[in-house]
């Protein structure tokens, strides 16, 4: 198979040629700026990150604690025989501010209670 006119060799060489003449990916000034911004942030970890990153970091930082708290709350509710639906309804009706707001929405929408 050392014969360069062998079909396998011909196809192999053509594929190598195609690989070497592939279009090159160019990086522009904007790409460089983005890399340098990331690097700058790595250099000054105390500097506030971009807002979405900051939010994500906060969410993940408290995610475990929030899940544990929710689990404990559910466990507590099941143990004490708490009935959340009637309780929430009672709180809703007994709070005059929420009721007034509800009346306002009904008035604005033109519906009747």
């Amino acid at each position, binding site marked *: *198979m050392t014969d360069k006119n062998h*079909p*396998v060799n*011909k*196809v*192999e060489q*053509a*594929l*190598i*040629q*195609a*690989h*070497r*003449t*592939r*279009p*090159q*990916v*160019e*990086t522009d000034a904007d*790409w*460089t700026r*983005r*890399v*340098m911004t*990331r*690097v*700058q942030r*790595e*250099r000054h970890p105390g500097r506030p990150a971009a807002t979405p990153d900051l939010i994500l970091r906060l969410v993940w930082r408290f995610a475990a604690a929030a899940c544990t708290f929710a689990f404990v709350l559910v466990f507590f509710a099941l143990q004490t025989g708490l009935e959340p639906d009637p309780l929430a309804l009672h709180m809703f009706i007994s709070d005059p501010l929420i009721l007034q707001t509800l009346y306002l929405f009904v008035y604005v929408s033109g519906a009747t209670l």
Partner: protein
Amino acid sequence: MNDFAILLDRYRGYVCKIVSGLLPSDLVSDLAHEVFVEAYRSLPQYDTRKAFKNWLAGIALRHCRSYWRQHYRNREIPLSALGDEHHHWVEAVIAEDASALHENAESRHEARDILEHLLAALSPKDRMVLTLVHLDGYTVKEAAEMLGWSVINVKVRAYRSREKIRKQIAALLAEEKRA
């Protein structure tokens, strides 16, 4: 900081060239971005006795390998999955029809499709070695330094992976004959 900007400017083309040989072109700039960020983080661990270029290439290759580890499914795609235009390209290569080859973008595109098809059957390690040694033309020693492997390991893997590709090319040609 300015020193790193100089390094970035000097080596970005080199990193993009390595990455573009191994990954789909739409992923190259993002991965090159990650390579430089990791290089910055790892600068304290850089051994100044070794070539910076190879050290940087090592980081780029680790990222590429990680990508292929996630996307490699040991898939043997049947050669019949290739279209007519790919078979015409193979015919033109065998017939040495120069006008049909490398003259237009479509022809190059078909060649790259076939190459991608053949490489898809290789493991991530084989794929990297074959690309560096046989496709990009680095020497076995250079590839070994970039990958951080022994020369023997690269040599053996390069030989075996090339044989696998050649077997696939032979199967493609056999199918051409049958058609």
